[in-house]
């Protein structure tokens, strides 16, 4: 039963990934810039968190 649940969920996730594989918003310069800035921001934030985690372990 549990195995079935995970199989169904994995199937649903695959379906969602296929359904939304392509972004539907028009990729204007503003959109591309915003998404790029967002990626950079999140990477920076994750970097800070990882740094904090490592410094805590030390």
């Amino acid at each position, binding site marked *: 039963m549990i195995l079935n649940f995970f199989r169904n969920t994995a199937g*649903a996730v695959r379906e*969602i990934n296929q359904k939304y594989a392509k972004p539907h*918003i028009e990729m204007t310069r503003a959109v591309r810039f915003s*998404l790029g800035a967002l990626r950079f921001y999140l990477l920076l*934030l994750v970097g*800070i968190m990882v740094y904090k985690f490592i410094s805590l372990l030390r």
Partner: protein
Amino acid sequence: MNFFSKLFYRYKKVIKVARLYLLIAGPGIIVMVADNDAGGITTYTATGAQYGFHLIWFLILLGPVAYYVQEMTVRLGAVTKRGHAEAIFHSFGSFWGWFSLLDLVFLDWLTMITEFVGMTAAMSIFGVPPIVTVIVGWILMGTMVLQGRYWTWEKAALVFCGLNLIYIPAAFMINPPVDKILHGSFIPSLPPGGFTNALFFLLMANIGTTIAPWMIFFQQSAVVDKGMQEKDMLWGKIDTGVGSLLTVVVAAGCVILTATLLPGQMIDDAATAALRFMPINHYVGALLAIGLFDAGFLGAICISLASSWAFGEVFGWAHSLNHKVKEAPWFYAYYFFDLLLAGTVVLIPHAPLVLITLFVQVIAVTLLPAALVFLILLLNNEETMGQYKNTLFQNVANIGIVVVIIVISTLYGISAIFPKILGG
């Protein structure tokens, strides 16, 4: 006769408009009042105790800020008929979709734990054990959704919103100094001591509690579930405006309470403030405790629904409060699972609740900027928004607000990770 017939006609018109508003009112008021959740009430009581009436003007400024952000969700929901999670998947693809959904779910769960902490702390003032509070809370939360009608849930939630206004009569009961309140409300000034790191941290906390990621997801999904159309948009905006007014009034009420009764004291949480009120004015202490329970309760039901709607939209489950449990089993299962999990954590002895509160601040800065940026981009997409896309003025106002919120919430999150970074 002519005068009286005109008067009667106007009276009928006003009644008709009021009835129409009451029919459409809901998502805006609920999201804004629920925004004054357990964490919010704690922030406001700490603000009043530490800085007196000096920062009421700042809370008043946050009202329009909250309105501008949430108003965009009304337009987006009414035009696209999609919740925010689905809108992100559809417009930006599965990478940003999964990022937003999973971040939202995790953040919502952590925030819900803080709501249950507030509820149990409030009821323990009346001698109610945490397990009883949690179980009664679960039953109430379950009863509200099991009717199978969005309308019933919404009106029940509005009753709890009304209870949240308890801080207003409480503030009047203590005869606060009206001249100081008016001065603090309309003449922006810094508290004695000037701009310190502690003040900056508290200002950031106030902003952080005014705009939360779950609010964006919740209101857009609620607008869709309610079936709001483009023609109802004006009412949706009025509803959001009224809600933002109420959120400011409640926040000011909390500040007035602690500024009057506990000036200069350090408050760690709202339950402590309620306990300290008891020897001074038993009724006001009791009202603050009841309000805190209500704030946690409202926060928990709205946040849990925000997650359930988001999951339902993306996974394609039936996800409306208009469905019975049999018709939308996964939607309700997730709603209850979320509530059960959050409530159970609070009952675990020595659970790291302080760490969880800290995590909420940190995780929020990973989701809030993304949610706000997506909101602005979606509202500028002419293809889907048509005539309802952001105007130049709306873009200037909203982008300005979003940039300030992102900078400040990021500083707030980073200062939670590195407490000494601001010299605190």
